[in-house]
């Protein structure tokens, strides 16, 4: 029975970062987050229409955030790097993308976070996940503003 449970555990490796989890050393190095700030990590892709809709709203709130206390970074999970970069450039020319983006064509970062939906927002401070939001949300800028108030 013990052997069965052990094998079952080994075959169902479903690790995902959720609230109160601490990022691994490797992930901390990859993301280069400022531990003292609340960082919002936004996972998006060029083919995800909900992400396209949300990014301008996230950029809008990024303009109003106190940069000493908050940071927003994007993780572009496009497998074709050139697609991701073209998508980001198109957003930038329209003024819809004003935060740092890490390209993740190998999907190593998103695999580690393992979100159940996209877009996915992770609020992180001191390398610890404070809150997670999955999926398309209307008026995401207002939602983020309220989230940050509760997390302060």
């Amino acid at each position, binding site marked *: 029975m013990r052997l069965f449970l052990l094998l079952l555990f080994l075959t169902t490796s479903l690790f995902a970062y959720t609230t109160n989890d601490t990022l691994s050393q490797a992930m901390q190095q990859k993301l280069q987050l400022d531990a003292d700030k609340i960082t919002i990590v936004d996972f998006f892709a060029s*083919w995800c229409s909900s*992400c396209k809709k949300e990014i301008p709203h996230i950029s809008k709130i990024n303009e109003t955030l106190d940069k000493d206390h908050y940071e927003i970074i994007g993780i572009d999970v496009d497998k074709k790097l050139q697609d991701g970069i073209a998508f980001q450039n198109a957003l930038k020319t329209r003024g819809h993308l004003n935060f740092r983006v890490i390209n993740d064509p190998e999907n190593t970062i998103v695999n580690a976070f393992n979100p159940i939906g*996209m877009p996915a927002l992770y609020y992180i401070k001191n390398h610890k996940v404070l809150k997670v939001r999955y999926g398309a949300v209307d008026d995401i800028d207002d939602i983020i503003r309220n989230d940050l108030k509760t997390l302060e």
Partner: protein
Amino acid sequence: MKCIGIILITLFIGGCSGMTHVKPWEKERLSRDSMSNAAGNTLVSKFDAHVYFSKEASKGGGGVSGGGCGCN
């Protein structure tokens, strides 16, 4: 013998679970217009929807809002 059987069943079940999962960030192809029933043809799409809604006596909820990215 019994132990080997348990191991094989466990590996089989584990293997099956790995075959079906498409992660939300792996749905690029699924989000393409060509992956819909009508493959991007508006007329076919409207006709399909008409037949479906007539049979189901309901409307809406037939789209893949969000590009099939697993949201909502």
